[in-house]
């Protein structure tokens, strides 16, 4: 049995007309055919050449014939099963289902001063246990939750992070790459009897570095799914216009899809937008901005026409340094747009500022927002039971009252979503109970989860194997002089 996710029952938001979708898709094919992409991998370039692409080995550029592009898009599954070591956490990615996913941070953040600092190993573990416990969080993320913790050397951060995710959660994860570390994470997936989703991230404009190509090659060959990401920044690494950025971001991902389908036809892929406008005041991405929502709505619509699952990742981070009003609207609005426009995975929980900070208290509060959005896209049930004509007739006008009816008891909870940590109290009760804010209540819930929630543990044998792989990674990197 897989996790349910949220199933949208109405037509998705369509921000583009059919003509606009076709114009952008024609632009994508034109860019891939005429401008081409840079793949910094001789192996990839040889593979493209073998399949009748035009390859310039000196410039590491490849130009794709439209027929090959369309063939590879057709070979990509429209939905797929994704297996966890705990069957209750399996996912079926695609269709009308939306899942929520965690967003990482380099550091944790102090909840009183909002200053960032490096997390400890214990804080990393606790953040994972919280994510494992949350009802509306279906998917862990690369580097979850922290890019590094304690004094782990940077080169070991991804293997250590992947190991922690496997140890403290059975929710599915995707895993990053650097210095060939995917070799170790793929091996961890095998010994833990779970799947891990690999990553292939473009380096805009229109480029894949060798490590991204190699990561995709290894994951595809291992029969594991991949998400292929464009991280374009509008006005910096892509055109300042949403339409122009849609052309380059989609083209970058399509180029990655062609590669994976040539490596192994039928490889499971999610197209992922990690696209922001450039913040021209500071030079960092413009987190939480309307440009993110505009791009993701159109991006989701375009990928629906390709019939390939889609992920919205630019939603997780905000400009705010703390958990406040700005933080909430910068996350909630793009998340809502993503869900309404058909995103299959929304990367949301836990991110505070940029990719700089993550906190489990934020994850807990985000889980309420995810519940509200999820309930919204599940729409309105119109049936004899919900229309309740017999009941309306029975209750009649005043003094008729619906509170004390079996219908109310049966339906009110199904119809509503009740947030777990929002302050829902009337004034008097709020004063009496210590004037707690949602943030206070989220801190309490974090403590409660840590005291009560126990993730499904690895077997002793699996634990031994995971540690062996970490030790092997350490030893290999030491031999290469990277430690």
């Amino acid at each position, binding site marked *: 049995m897989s996790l349910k996710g949220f199933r949208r029952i109405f037509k998705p938001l369509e921000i583009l007309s059919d003509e606009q979708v076709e114009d952008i898709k024609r632009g994508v094919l034109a860019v891939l055919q005429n401008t081409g992409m840079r793949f910094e991998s001789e192996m990839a370039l040889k593979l493209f050449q073998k399949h009748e692409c035009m390859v310039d080995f000196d410039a590491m550029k490849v130009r794709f014939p439209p027929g090959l592009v369309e063939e590879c898009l057709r070979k990509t599954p429209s939905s797929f099963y994704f297996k966890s070591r705990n069957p209750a956490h399996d996912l079926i990615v695609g269709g009308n289902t939306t899942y929520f996913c965690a967003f990482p941070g380099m550091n944790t953040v102090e909840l009183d001063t909002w200053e960032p600092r490096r997390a400890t190993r214990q804080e990393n573990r606790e953040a994972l246990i919280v994510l494992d416990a949350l009802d509306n969080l279906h998917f862990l993320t690369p580097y979850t939750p922290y890019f590094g913790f304690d004094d782990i050397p940077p080169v070991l951060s991804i293997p250590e992070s992947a190991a922690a995710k496997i140890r403290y959660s059975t929710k599915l994860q995707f895993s990053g790459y650097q210095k060939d570390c995917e070799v170790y994470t793929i091996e961890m997936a095998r010994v833990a009897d779970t799947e891990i989703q690999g990553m292939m991230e473009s380096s805009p404009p229109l480029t894949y570095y060798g490590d991204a190509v190699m990561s995709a090659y290894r994951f595809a060959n291992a029969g594991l799914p991949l998400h292929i990401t464009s991280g374009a920044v509008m006005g910096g690494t892509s055109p300042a216009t949403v339409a122009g950025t849609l052309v380059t971001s989609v083209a970058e991902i399509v180029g990655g899809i062609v590669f994976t389908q040539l490596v192994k036809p039928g490889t499971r892929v999610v197209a992922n937008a990690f696209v922001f406008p450039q913040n021209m005041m500071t030079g960092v991405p413009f987190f939480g901005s309307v440009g993110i929502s505009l791009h993701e709505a159109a991006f989701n619509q375009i990928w629906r026409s390709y019939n390939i699952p889609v992920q919205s990742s630019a939603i997780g981070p905000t400009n705010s340094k703390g958990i406040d009003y700005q933080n909430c609207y910068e996350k909630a609005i793009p998340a809502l747009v993503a869900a309404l426009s058909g995103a299959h995975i929304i990367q949301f929980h836990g991110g505070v500022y940029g990719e700089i900070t993550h906190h489990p208290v934020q994850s807990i509060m985000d889980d309420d927002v995810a519940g509200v959005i999820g309930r919204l896209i599940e729409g309105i049930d119109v049936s004899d039971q919900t229309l309740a004509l017999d009941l309306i007739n029975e209750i009649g006008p*005043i*003094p008729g*009252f619906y*509170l*004390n009816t*079996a219908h*109310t*008891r049966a339906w*009110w*909870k199904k119809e509503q979503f009740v947030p777990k940590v929002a302050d829902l109290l*009337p*004034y*008097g*009760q709020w*004063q*009496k109970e210590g004037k707690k804010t949602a943030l206070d209540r989220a801190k309490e819930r974090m403590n409660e989860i840590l005291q009560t929630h126990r993730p499904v543990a690895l077997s002793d044998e699996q634990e031994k194997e995971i540690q062996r792989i970490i030790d092997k990674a350490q030893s290999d990197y030491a031999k290469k002089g990277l430690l």
Partner: protein
Amino acid sequence: MAEEKKDILDNLKKAVFEYDRQLAARSAVEAVEKGIDPIEAMNVMTAAIREIGQAFGKGELWLPELVGASDAMQGATPILEEEMERKGRHRESLGMVVAGTVFGDIHSIGKTMVTTLLTAAGFHIEDLGINVKAEEFSAAVKKHDADLLVMSALMTTTMTEQEKVIEALNKEGTREKVKVMVGGAAVTDEFAESIGADGYDPTAPGAAELARRLLAV
């Protein structure tokens, strides 16, 4: 007979937990017919309501369940009380409570929450309903020799009606004999004090605790 009695008492309990007024009424009639002690039958339901009230206080159950359980119990209560009266029996309780929503106000939810939890705590309730005039409150306090009067007013426009009820008690000469609790969304401690009430609590579980404190039971 013992098994039959157990089945009937179990059904009374089940009626509260399953919000089934018909089952409660039917089981109460059966209890009377089989000569089961009506006080024992009432106690079974009171215990069940207490569990529901506790779950409500912890946020495990919600208002529709609380009201449903209370309504189920109301299906059986008049039948069992009539039997008690016929047998000349009196149920021990923490005190006699007259409750109602004040004149001009038809909001019953807060009042129902409080009376349900007072029932669960072991008080005997005379619920006058909604839109109750000051004189009706006063007359009921006198008639039932009430220990406690609880009244509710949701709106700012009707909360002043609570003061009129206290004036009516003063006029009737019963104010000194009865404790008065007020409640409602707009009510505050300051307001309660200003009209001469004995207490106010913003929550239904808190109101039940306050009732016990005021009557020292």
